[in-house]
């Protein structure tokens, strides 16, 4: 084997394996973990955590608070499965550090309702079969709840014909606003029916 054929690559990553003469990737030192404390409320209960600063809000919920209802689908903001409400707004919990959420009020799927006391949106998802495998479902439901609030608040969307004035609960609006939540099982048609049902009852 020719020495020049050996090209280093670090881990999953770095450098260039299959081209001769290209740059070598030297792994950077990763350092000692830094711990920091953070306090926030989740579903009404206060939590104080000592965490590695690298911990995302998603992993703080799933691995530290063991609230596994919030799902990790991609960990890169590309699927929406990790959607939670922070101070009433929906966000991707995979793309925020836990320590950045000091003092926040977090609502997860577990905080919306329970098996014996479903939130109206959860009940509508069951009734309209707005899910199949269930993995994107908590994110869809958190998003759905927030979307109806966003429409009420008059926040426009990409498909709003008029940027000003009141926003409508139309199918087109719901589909656009829910597009950050991917469902590979393809329950979209039913999810919009569930949301329309809830929006109608809210009047």
């Amino acid at each position: 084997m020719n020495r020049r054929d050996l090209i280093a690559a670090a881990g999953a990553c770095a450098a260039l394996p299959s081209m001769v003469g290209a740059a070598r990737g030297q792994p950077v030192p990763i350092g000692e973990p830094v711990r920091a404390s953070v306090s926030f409320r989740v579903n009404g209960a206060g939590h104080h955590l000592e965490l590695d600063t690298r911990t995302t809000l998603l992993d703080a919920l799933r691995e530290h608070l063991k609230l596994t209802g919030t799902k990790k689908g991609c960990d890169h903001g590309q699927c929406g499965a990790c959607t939670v409400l922070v101070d009433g707004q929906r966000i991707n919990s995979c793309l925020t550090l836990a320590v950045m959420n000091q003092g926040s009020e977090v609502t997860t799927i577990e905080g919306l309702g329970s098996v014996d006391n479903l939130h109206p949106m959860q009940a509508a998802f069951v009734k309209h079969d707005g899910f199949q495998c269930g993995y994107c479902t908590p994110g869809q439901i958190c998003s759905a709840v927030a979307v109806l609030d966003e429409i009420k608040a008059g926040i426009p969307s990409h498909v709003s014909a008029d940027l000003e004035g009141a926003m409508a609960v139309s199918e087109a609006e719901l589909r656009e606003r829910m597009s950050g939540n991917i469902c590979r099982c393809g329950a979209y048609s039913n999810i919009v029916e569930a949301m329309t049902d809830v929006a109608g009852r809210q009047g």
Partner: protein
Amino acid sequence: MKFDKPATDNPIDRLQVVGQPRDRIDGARKVTGTARYAYEHHDVAANQAYGYVVGAGIAKGRIASIKLDAARKAPGVLAIVTAKEAGKLNKGKRNTARLLAGPEIEHYHQAVALVVAESFEQARAAASLVEIAYAPTKGTFDLKKVKDSGKKPEGDDPSLDDTNVGDFPGAFESAQVKLDQSYTTPDESHAMMEPHATLAAWEGERLTLWTSNQMVAWGVADMAATLGISKDNIRIMSPFIGGGFGGKLFLRSDVLLAALGARAAKRPVKVALQRPLMINNTTHRPATIQRIRIGATREGKITAIGHESWSGDLPGGGPEVAVQQTRLLYAGANRMTAMRLVELDLPEGNAMRAPGEAPGLMALEIAMDEMAEKLSLDPIAFRMLNDTQVDPEKPERPFSMRQLGECFRVGAERFGWSRRQARPGTMRDGHGLIGFGVAAAFRNNIVMKSGARVSLDSQGIVTVETDMTDIGTGSYTIIGQTAAEMLGVDLYKVVVRLGDSAFPVSAGSGGQWGGNSATAGVYAACVKLREAVAQKLGINSGEAVFEGGDVKAGNRSLPLASAAASGPLTAEDTIEYGDLDETHQQSTFGAHFVEVSVDTATAETRIRRMLAVCAAGRILNPKTARSQVIGAMTMGAGAALMEELAVDKRRGFFVNHDLAGYEVPVHADIPHQDVIFLDETDPMSSPMKAKGVGELGICGVGAAIANAIYNATGVRVRDYPITLDKLIRHMPDAA
């Protein structure tokens, strides 16, 4: 129970519970986030550590050296697994490439190491310190370029053979109207929302795996083979699976690495494949190049039909069986099919939702549309002219049930097909060119041996246990409905426990065989339990009627629960099949109708309406079955319009290997979807008289969209996905 004669009347026919659109019995758990998936079992094993997978940075070659020192010394690291550390590993019979590579690298992102640490953050950081030197070798990555080197697939599976009936070359040559076209479908990814994930825990020699696997018994067998240990020492649990679509049929690297990591770290270890690694690390639907030839009389009777398909896979892999449906879908005395397989060094190709038929119909059903146009026939009329009630290769062999024509008739009426303009490019709405498209749906019904255990307790609670899985299909619910119907109890009285290898081996979830086969297994076990109950209550089992929570015979009526007063009653059985699927061709049928709008300026295609009409035997639960169909239609829309794994033909990998790069449909892509199930019971399929439906919905829908785009624009695209760059230069002037 042996099912070898057509089903006669049985308790399922009462349809008190079965056939009803019941809500999912696991629904409340899924919508509250309390259904536990593989990575979420915090409570089952103490002291869980985290694994992070390192994937190969080259497509083919060898690892020259791995430096682990820096990673080993990194904070929190407990163990590192590589092929060298792992020692001898075998390969399960259902895997083509090894799940842990080294020193040979067979494909990009093949796992080469697992770093185990106290925390996820530590494992991920340390993984970046694993330093690997590769000696790459030249690989083959371009299907089109090496197509002609394709060989007949090896092995004794007759479905891979070339077929020839009559004189295809002669009949095609002399046909009055002919079509000879090529079509391509790209590599596609399952992209299920839950990444492959496993928690592994050893207790001495015994290994317990909480994982996400569609086929529990296959997983146990392949894991035992890979590790060289006894199957008895492995327990797999997959109670909830966040989507599979074929991508979780087989043992994948998360399972093996979690087990090896747990052994090395002497602690339970959990591993989830990182999303950017998944697409190249796991399996995908292979790309195809297909050639279709159809010859017909001027009146539109097919006299010759030929379908050839080329696909690639790693050495030892198999072809995409894209010609399968063409053997059965349309009449024609002279016919041929053939598949050719080339060796490619891309990641492993394997089953994805409706393997074979999904890409096969994407080609065949465009060809039928093109042929109809050549014949100046309506595309539905052309298909109906060539409908058949018998296997066209063996006319003595009838279909058990075939309502393709009725699917088209009902669908055409509901959809308003008569409003379609035959001349392309003539319908317009605002800035959109409007087109209607249609295609046949076809998928074979496969029956699989399937077992279950059913027990009754003194409270009248019925518990069903089987290793069957629910991948979103609704297995929990239809199994519960089956047991409730058989024992005459309300659905809420039934507890269903799935996905545990400690339970009787079932059909598992794949090939749309799961629903019919697994409920048939439950039916068999329930028949046995009914006999045990009758005997216990001193009732003649032939007379016993189970209803309303009671068992009745003549004037007598006793509470069902009383049979278990002195202790639970348990029965176990397995449904096995005779040759009804040999004597009769069992298939499912449908018709897809699609309306699209193609933007006059940008050539962006958006779907406005979708309708599927399905004939698929008894529909066990119209609500969950409908969800299966709309979900499959959605995946088919992705295949038609956007899904394509982009191959880097120099470096040999799928470049767009995450959910931003590999686009699947989002809410805004999918309109309201209509589904109609024709009333059908098929006594040849099982005592349930049901057939599969989970894959039928994806079969043909892509071609219906392609045909609608043609109808809208007059531009015929034969290479999927039909993205705007393939239309833009041929679009009429926007003004």
